């Protein structure tokens, strides 16, 4: 059964027709907002006046953003959180992946699945869970700390009063970092497990013949072989860490917490636009953040491209 001539696609047009759903969606939800925010970054706009109410102000929004104390504060918060949640992800994920790779045979998929679970769980569900875990008086985390304080020999390490995790500016960042770490460590484990499977077994066999121990094998075979994947994983962590929004947004009730201690740059520019009504400055800040992300990604690239490496 053949289609009538009128319905048949010519080979020249077919690629465009098949591409069009993506191109269309990308243009509407990807490209247009991007260009619109670039345009807005050079305008001052009272949004409730309608789209016609924009006035061109040149680089004024950028000048304002660069001199804004809270913008710098948010960048510092973001850097703190990116490092405190990003570095442990990899430091824990690599040995964990090696351990799972070598020690689990039949249970492997189940174990990996357990670690991967947080990554695919809805952020809202996680936030509700962690808000109650972090609760000052009844939260499980504080109950756990209290229980440890009663263990002989450990008591002096534990604080006497329950910790106000989400109310005290000093504790908000560690609380967020813990959540982000917990959420993404499994994702990195999966990355490294995939890379571990590509390392040929005979290298390890040769090393064993030469008398190398497990630790030496890890540092001289496994780690160098993982380097391309580490580069990939670290790049994703840098980009994700700098754009951190959902977890701190929900844990701090959308406000950034006491003393804005949990206010990342992404949260601040969201608030600039929707709470403080300044879409122009918010757009300018988003482009400044983009530059920071770009520069740091480039630096990561340089850091991983040593002369001996094949990356």
């Amino acid at each position, binding site marked *: 059964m053949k289609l009538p001539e009128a319905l048949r696609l010519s080979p020249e047009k077919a690629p465009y027709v098949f591409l069009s759903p993506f191109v269309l969606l990308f243009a509407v939800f990807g490209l247009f907002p991007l260009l619109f925010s670039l345009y807005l970054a050079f305008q001052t706009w*009272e949004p*409730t006046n309608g789209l016609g109410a924009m006035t061109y102000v040149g680089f004024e929004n950028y000048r304002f953003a660069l001199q804004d104390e809270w913008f710098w504060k948010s960048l510092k918060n973001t850097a703190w959180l990116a490092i405190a949640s990003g570095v442990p992800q990899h430091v824990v994920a690599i040995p964990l992946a090696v351990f799972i790779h070598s020690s689990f045979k039949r249970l492997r998929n189940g174990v990996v699945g357990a670690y991967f679970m947080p990554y695919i769980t809805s952020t809202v569900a996680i936030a509700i869970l962690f808000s109650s875990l972090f609760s000052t008086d009844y939260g499980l985390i504080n109950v756990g700390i209290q229980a440890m304080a009663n263990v002989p020999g450990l008591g002096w390490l534990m604080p006497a009063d329950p910790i106000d995790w989400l109310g005290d500016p000093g504790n908000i960042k560690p609380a967020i970092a813990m959540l982000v770490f917990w959420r993404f460590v499994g994702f990195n484990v999966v990355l490294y497990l995939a890379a571990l499977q590509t390392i040929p077994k005979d290298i390890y066999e040769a090393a064993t013949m030469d008398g190398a121990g497990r630790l030496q094998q890890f540092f001289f075979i496994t780690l160098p072989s993982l380097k391309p994947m580490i580069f990939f994983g670290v790049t994703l962590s840098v980009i994700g860490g700098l754009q951190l929004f959902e977890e701190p947004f929900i844990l701090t009730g959308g406000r950034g917490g006491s003393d804005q201690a949990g206010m990342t740059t992404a949260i601040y520019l969201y608030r600039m636009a929707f709470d403080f009504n300044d879409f122009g400055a918010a757009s300018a800040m988003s482009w400044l953040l983009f530059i920071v992300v770009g520069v740091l990604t480039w630096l990561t690239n340089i850091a991983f491209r040593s002369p001996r490496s094949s990356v």
Partner: protein
Amino acid sequence: MQPVKPRLPGLVGMLLAALTASSALAQQTLTIAAFPAVDDIVRAAIPQWKRLHPNVEIKVVSRQFSDHHTAMTTALSTSFYLPDVMALEVGYVGRFAQGGGLDDLSRAPYNIGQFAPRYVPYAIAQATNRKGAVVAAPTDIGPGTLLYRIDILEKAGLTQADLTRSWDSFVDSGAKIKASTGSYLMAHARDMKDILIRTGIQPGEGLYFDDQSDVLVNTPRFVRAFELARKVRQLKLDAKVSAWSNEWSEGFKRGTISTQLTGAWLAGHLNNWLAPGTKGQWRAAQLPEGAYAAYGGTFFAIARGSPKEHKQLAWEFIQLMTLNRDVQINAFRTQDAFPALIETYDDPFFDQPIEFLGGQKARLGWREAARKITAVTVHKQDAFADEVINTELDKVLDRGKDIATALADAQRLLARRAHR
């Protein structure tokens, strides 16, 4: 077969009539966007509207409070999906009044000026921007009041006068309450700062900025508010819980929070769901030291970009909601929506005792307060200023930051934004 014949033309006629009627209705549907409680008030007024305009349907689009206001902001900025009438909470009226997205009701064809004396003066002033445009009509207001637990007060050997004589005596009473009953004076020291910065505002001044966008934060008004809040914290008189949190409602249920500075409407919330078990133990008083302040309020507005052919009807609908005595009183009786229409103030409902407040005729006091409240000029950076002041207060309360330094820091931050 016989009976069918005469019926047929009748059926066709009915069908035709129904068709024409529905097409006429389709042309005349007024869309009202509102949030909970206000949506019910609007729905309750539909029968009265139908008597005036039998051919005009009312369609209520209801969203949650913040969703509603986000949707209205988006609709105004793009001029798409604008309702014919939108309900707005007072904070958003101030924000939207800065721009030109809402119709000026003081001009033709609306001419709200002729009705202005019938509204509570401060409410109509809240809807008036600096250029004199009236961007919304008030429907309900929130006169400020001091709710307190009479049983706790009596246990501490105090009277209402001890609480309200001055702010200092209010705090001193709190210390006695804490010592003799263990209850906190208030939920959060911030609550008292919020009311104190709203009292003693001079004409031409706003809350944080004056007419010329000069910052007013480093003034005695703020110093006193911060000092008293700090005293409350130092004497451990506040429970350190924020309004609408679980701990807050638990504090009311268990009687660990003995007073609340709030809008009159909170009495209804306490009765309905926050702490129904404490019925009869609460009383209402005027705010301490003769302060009068507004807590919330609802308005109706017409967007500049809404369908032109409906504007006259939209205005008539707003008049029904805000200027009709029965509609206003009904909303007061059923939803605790305190009327903005002055001529309702002689209604017998005001004289009725409130069971939750131990039979107190508290509405009389709230009515008096409503007349004495003055409106505060709104500035477009008020939302940001709120955030900055609360942050600095947190630093003073939690980390012992010096008040003068805190206010100077806030002043500097706000000055940079004032003219944006």
